[in-house]
């Protein structure tokens, strides 16, 4: 995968398929089998295969995804999908839009916490990125997100002090954080946040929540600073 971490635009160009037609070398293996080594039978089959691939690919909606949309979608995947399984299970699929719609619906049915709009956004992103004609190897969603992050987010809490509203934070927490940090912020796949010392260290709190850390997703592209402050206020009130 040729990916230069220069700008988010480069990353997005790579999200689009570079070609509609699977190269024979990919179909037949890394050995880069020469065409003359193929039996006529195989060549006929290959032609069929290519035709099938083209038809499948043409069914795809090739609408490019805006960088901001892609960033938001990738962040949502880390935050809402990676609760139950890692993103590699998602990234290895190559599916047409209708299968993505069905898959995301199934996940929501099973408990993925997504609004209708968020689900639609994910389907749009995944069917542009992981369609049947996409290259065999794609960067991980984590890497893609890291590269798509704008050089510098707005400085951490430099926009002046925000006053969080604990009452609003409760709902935001339940929707975005609870799956990992547990009910009442008592801990789960992620650490206990109620009475966590990090709540007193606002710099570290904002750094972790905006930019993520290890398996902890980055929220900078999903939540507004006001919303994060609301969550902080609610956590601090626990």
């Amino acid at each position: 995968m040729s990916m230069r971490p220069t700008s988010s635009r480069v990353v997005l160009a790579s999200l689009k398929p570079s070609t509609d037609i699977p190269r024979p070398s990919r179909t037949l293996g890394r050995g880069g089998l020469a065409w003359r080594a193929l039996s006529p039978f195989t060549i006929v089959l290959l032609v069929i295969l290519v035709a099938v691939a083209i038809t499948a690919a043409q069914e795809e909606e090739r609408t490019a995804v805006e960088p901001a949309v892609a960033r938001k979608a990738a962040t949502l995947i880390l935050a809402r999908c990676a609760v139950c399984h890692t993103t590699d299970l998602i990234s290895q699929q190559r599916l047409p839009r209708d299968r993505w719609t069905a898959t995301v619906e199934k996940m929501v049915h099973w408990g993925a916490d997504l609004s209708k709009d968020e689900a639609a956004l994910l389907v749009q992103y995944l069917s542009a990125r992981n369609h049947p004609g996409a290259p065999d190897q794609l960067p991980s969603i984590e890497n893609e997100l890291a590269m798509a992050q704008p050089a510098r987010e707005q400085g951490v809490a430099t926009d002046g002090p925000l006053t969080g509203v604990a009452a609003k934070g409760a709902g935001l927490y339940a929707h975005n954080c609870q799956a990992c940090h547990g009910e009442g912020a008592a801990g789960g796949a992620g650490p206990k946040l109620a009475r966590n010392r990090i709540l007193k260290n606002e710099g570290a709190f904002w750094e972790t929540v905006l930019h993520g850390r290890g398996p902890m997703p980055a929220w900078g592209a999903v939540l507004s600073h006001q919303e994060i402050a609301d969550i902080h206020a609610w956590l601090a009130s626990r």
Partner: protein
Amino acid sequence: MTVSRRAWLKTLLQGIGVGLVVGPRFPTVDAAYGSEGSLGTGPLTVRVTRPFDAETPVREFTSWLTPNERFFVRSHFGPPAAETVQSDAWRLTVKGLVKEGLSVSLKDLQQFEAVTLTAVLQCSGNGRAHHRPKVPGVQWERGAVGNAQWTGVRLRDVLQQAGVKPQGLHVQFQGADRPVLATVPLFTRSIPLAKALHPDTLLAYEMNGRPLPLLHGAPLRVITPGWMAESCMKWLTEITVRADETPGYYMQQAYRIPETAVQPTSGLPGSAMVPVEQMLVKSLIAAPAEGDTVRKGPVTIQGVAWAGDVAVTQVEVSCDDGRTWEPARFVGEEQPYAWRQWQYIWNAKSVGPTAILCRATDARGERQPVTSPWNPGGFLWSGWDRLTVTVAA
């Protein structure tokens, strides 16, 4: 049901006439994930990091038994906490349509006669990545299979002790593993009573002579020799005898294939769906490996072949992209349910890249097709195995 499934395959293969040659995809895409880690699994190709799904690189299949730490791992939710399945508190419960419910410890269970057998365990999705159009699911290539020696007690003996009531026709298994969120359906499966009462169906506590490892179902798992691995429940804690097949996603939707041929569509299959059960005849080339360079002259090609509960009768190899086929020679042990090792000495003459293929035939007369019939779950891939090597002067 078995008969109709065979018929389905036959019809479809005749209907296809030509198939698509889709070689295995290469190489170990996920090397980046680095599977050697806390799990102590050795060099597996990781497909999913959590829950852990990883396949065995086919070069391991030059050995008769697949070592425990090299054995493929398929998890729906990952193993339960070690304490819950390894402590003295662990019990196996037998309930439902039985005369007398049981709750037994591993020691109690080991009072029944111990049985050891060697059997292939294979994930139904093994080879899913080769289906076209592509289907959703873990994109297994060739190595979600292995051959191991299983020691345990007969499920039949346990069921006889509990006494199956006449209405009891299916035996349901539940393991101790649980999804992260309770909204996800549990992995619950059932097998028909006849398979449960088969003297070779085991509740196994040892794998290759060692206590069952956590990733493989400690302390107890089901082994249904000849059947695909979704019947081989890991971390077994509950057996329920019932009148009907288990309801729920993992029995009624997942692990089903169309009874009759279906067109590759992404919509509904347009056919009754029946549970995946028996293995199909299948073979793999373990050496040389994809992309290897071999010397002109004699080259040893070796691999394995299996056919579930019948014997493999022939393995053929083609070193000219399927134009001509030569029989391979069986080597090593022959045991029911286990795989058969084979060898073929190829006299490599022309320099350059060459495709090597293999295909097996079983005692029922079934022979591996060039590609398997498409099905929406991408199950039971058993197309010819294929790789390319380069012959150097």
